[in-house]
């Protein structure tokens, strides 16, 4: 587009582009900052989008860009597909969508590096920095691509959510990563052999598969967050290839932010990142659930009985979990809550940091069902309130309310922060059966004297409760 500009402007155009890149960076930083608080988050996302728009528009004036057919075509096609994805996706499928977008972002960075290499007729025109950056972009971008799609497959059920692993796989993975870095070094030393590039690309794609396959399905959100960080780093590496400041800064920003976010999620699950990546949690604990002593009894409740209990309570806390998300029961929960509120019952929601299918996912699902976010209480906020709560409705959650996390030092979830529902006057567990949760251990809460079980599909049970409330 620079061809349309007069000579005088062309002289300071490169500097102007850099200045606008700086403005775009400012929008990104301000945007991420605003994303930190629920009240300003939407504005933050819009800020970041404006930053992106500035970055893209300004780049079109770059004097190297002389042909626009592919650019216009690519943006129209990509824009329409992106629009379709964003409008059509169900909120319950957010983890899958983020995984797919991640894969696209990572592969785009790898393609940018590869395209830059292929576009230049003389490979020897690249210096060592350029070649190392190309190698690293391709490596990180390609493994982000395949890793994200394995994660997507596990989340959507195409690939078994179980941890698929065999002894020595971790060693092989680490060995392959070191070997790839070595190959990239050799590629920078002698780029004339085209096979080397293909080998680097191939191994990188493979590493993405073999390093995500051994991780259990419920750990996928952490993996996606980590891959998101990688896709940022891949973009920054592509920035080194093109010597483009905006790519380097934004990529580094996302890379670092993603790493911190990954760490926060790990903390919420009381796992270390190393443990998530190499631990194969799902495989190790996947044995038969400990049946324990056989004389434990559970108390069952019915919709009618439960309706009376909650209708005459003064404070009810709802603890939603993964099962609620799977049963898509968030709207009916809101209906029940509204009925209780109209009777003067105080209703709050206690949200465990890892409730739902990814951290923070439950908040999105309940927001979709029009539950105001100030009723959604984080674990630290709700825990002191349980002693004054009459009834806790635990819907499709299991491990996050398991008292063994506090009492059994030998158990696999010992030390994981949980919601202290056992301090309430009564707990009701909505569940299909007494089966074990993801951690593969029994839950003594089910057999506690203060607890009653409401067996059945979460959505159907809530519908029954909702109808029964009309009769009370």
């Amino acid at each position, binding site marked *: 587009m620079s061809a349309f500009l007069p000579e005088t402007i062309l002289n300071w155009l490169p500097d102007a582009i850099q200045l606008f890149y700086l403005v775009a960076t400012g929008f990104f930083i301000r945007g991420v900052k605003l*994303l930190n608080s629920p009240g300003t988050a939407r504005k933050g996302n819009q800020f970041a989008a404006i930053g992106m728009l500035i970055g893209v528009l300004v780049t079109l004036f770059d004097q190297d860009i002389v042909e626009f057919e592919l650019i216009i075509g690519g943006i129209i096609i990509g824009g329409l597909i992106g629009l379709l994805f964003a409008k059509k996706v169900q909120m319950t499928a957010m983890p899958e969508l983020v995984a797919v977008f991640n894969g696209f972002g990572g592969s785009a960075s790898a393609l940018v590096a590869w395209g830059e290499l292929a576009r230049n007729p003389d490979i020897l025109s690249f210096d060592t920095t350029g070649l190392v950056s190309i190698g690293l972009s391709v490596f990180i971008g390609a493994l982000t691509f395949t890793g994200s799609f394995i994660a997507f497959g596990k989340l959507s059920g195409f690939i078994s959510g179980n941890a698929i692993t065999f002894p020595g796989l971790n060693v092989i993975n680490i060995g392959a990563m070191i070997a790839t870095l070595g190959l990239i070094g050799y590629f920078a030393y002698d780029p004339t052999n085209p096979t080397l590039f293909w080998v680097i690309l191939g191994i990188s794609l493979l590493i993405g598969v073999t390093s995500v396959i051994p991780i259990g399905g419920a750990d996928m959100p952490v993996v996606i967050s980590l891959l998101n960080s990688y896709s940022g780093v891949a973009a920054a590496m592509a920035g080194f290839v093109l010597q483009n400041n905006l790519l380097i800064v934004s990529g580094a920003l996302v890379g670092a932010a993603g790493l911190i*976010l990954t760490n926060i999620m790990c903390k919420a699950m009381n796992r270390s990142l190393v443990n998530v990546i190499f631990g194969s949690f799902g495989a190790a604990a996947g044995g038969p659930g400990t049946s324990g002593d056989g004389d434990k009894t559970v108390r069952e409740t019915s919709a009618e009985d439960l309706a009376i209990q909650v209708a005459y309570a003064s404070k009810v806390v709802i603890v939603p979990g993964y099962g609620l998300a799977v049963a898509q029961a968030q709207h009916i929960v809101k209906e029940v809550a509204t009925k209780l509120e109209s009777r003067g019952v105080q209703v709050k929601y206690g949200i465990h940091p890892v409730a739902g299918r990814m951290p923070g996912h439950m908040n999105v699902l309940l927001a979709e069902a029009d539950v105001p976010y100030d009723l959604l209480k984080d674990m630290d906020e709700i825990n002191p309130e349980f002693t004054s709560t009459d009834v806790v409705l635990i819907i499709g959650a299991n491990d996050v309310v398991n008292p063994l996390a506090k009492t059994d030092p030998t158990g696999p979830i010992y030390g994981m922060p949980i919601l202290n529902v056992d301090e309430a006057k009564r707990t009701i567990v909505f569940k299909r059966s007494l089966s074990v949760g993801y951690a593969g251990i029994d839950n003594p809460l089910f057999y506690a004297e203060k607890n009653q079980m409401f067996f059945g599909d979460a959505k159907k049970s809530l519908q029954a409760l909702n109808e029964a409330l009309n009769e009370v």
Partner: protein
Amino acid sequence: MEVDLTLLMFIFALASFIGFELISKVPPTLHTPLMSGANAISGITLVGALIVAGSLGNPLGKWIGFAAIILATINVVGGFLVTDRMLEMFKKKEDEK
């Protein structure tokens, strides 16, 4: 344009520090939108794709750049829109009328 590698690495390191600082105290409520928002920003690689596809050179390289534009644009447009769709639903109690 010759750019000093040290300078680029300097920029990279500083931006990483800013990223670390920015996310330190984010409430769990926003983890999902934040992840998808950060994801959209990583689509910045679109800027690189534009340069590769729009500059002169070997057609193969330009077509690879074209593929990169499509993928990065899906990431950018889809990412920002879906994040907005999520955050639009976050309402405070007082706003409910």
